[in-house]
């Protein structure tokens, strides 16, 4: 049994429905990824007349949980795959508490599904990268086309990935941490007189 205090870090993996969040968490996690659910009652559900959610007394929000232990460093990285639908923003708030950074997973066939996640992280000044999950049958877009379509600032890294591949997803996290470091350095420089 280790006596040192475990140092914990949270990273969110967000994106629209079916974009590969569960797959991505599974590719990175050392444990069989856990799929858990939170039951939400009507009081906490913002009404959504288009989808008829207001007719239901409760709904279930699913999230995926994975873990990477860096034993030598006493660090544990937690991965949360979060529901991408706009009406679950309040759930994101709980998940986003204490988060270090985020990955927005994108399917180029349904770019608009990523807007809520991008807006969420921009509004809360949470550093994020955009990872375009390359589905076999999709047209390839270069990073600048995706940047333009998602109206991303010039500093947000955009990379292509395969959510099924551990090495590919590892590279996504490395890109995220590199981005967070650049961001922290930039802010530090700006704070100087």
């Amino acid at each position, binding site marked *: 049994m280790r006596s040192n205090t475990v140092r914990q870090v949270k990273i969110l993996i967000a994106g629209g429905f079916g974009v590969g969040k569960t797959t991505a968490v599974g590719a990175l996690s050392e444990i069989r990824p856990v799929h858990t659910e939170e039951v939400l009652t009507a009081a906490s559900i913002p009404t959504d007349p288009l989808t008829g959610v207001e007719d239901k007394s409760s709904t279930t929000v699913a999230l995926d949980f994975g873990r990477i232990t860096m034993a030598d460093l006493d*660090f544990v990285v937690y991965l949360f795959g979060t529901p991408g639908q706009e009406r679950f923003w309040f759930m994101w708030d709980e998940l986003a508490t204490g988060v*270090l950074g985020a990955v927005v997973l994108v399917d180029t066939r349904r770019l608009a599904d990523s807007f809520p996640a991008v807006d969420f992280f921009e509004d809360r000044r949470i550093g994020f990268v955009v990872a375009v999950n390359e589905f076999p049958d999709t047209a390839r877009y270069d990073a600048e086309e995706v940047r333009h379509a998602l109206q991303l600032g010039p500093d947000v890294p955009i990379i292509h990935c395969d959510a099924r591949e551990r090495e590919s997803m590892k590279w996504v996290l*490395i890109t995220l941490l590199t981005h967070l470091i650049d961001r*922290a350095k930039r802010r*530090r420089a700006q704070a100087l007189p």
Partner: protein
Amino acid sequence: MPSGNHETWFDDAAGPLVRPYAATNGRTEPSRELDLVSRIVATGYVPENLDLQHTEVLQLCHPDQSAEVAEIAGRVRLPIMVTKVLLCDLIECGAAALADASLHDDASNLAVLQEVLKGLHAL
């Protein structure tokens, strides 16, 4: 359910037809603040007359290796809030305890970011 009807309500797809909050006697608020990544460890003390659901949750908290709230919830297939209520019961009766852990959430802490990056490269 009317008395005398001891038939178990069970649906193949849905599992037992018991409202999740029945396990918590209707309580929807845990008695202490638990985060999704709070780490829980079993103390080794097992109270008598522990019901099935508490037992199941306790079995997932190993004495030598802590488990996170989110992981336990997923393994017992209960909503997070229900799991938190059950874990609080276990902590209060001395069967489980919070393990030592510290969440690093300061995205401006260069030392932490660089260490995590180093760890990712080493994976």
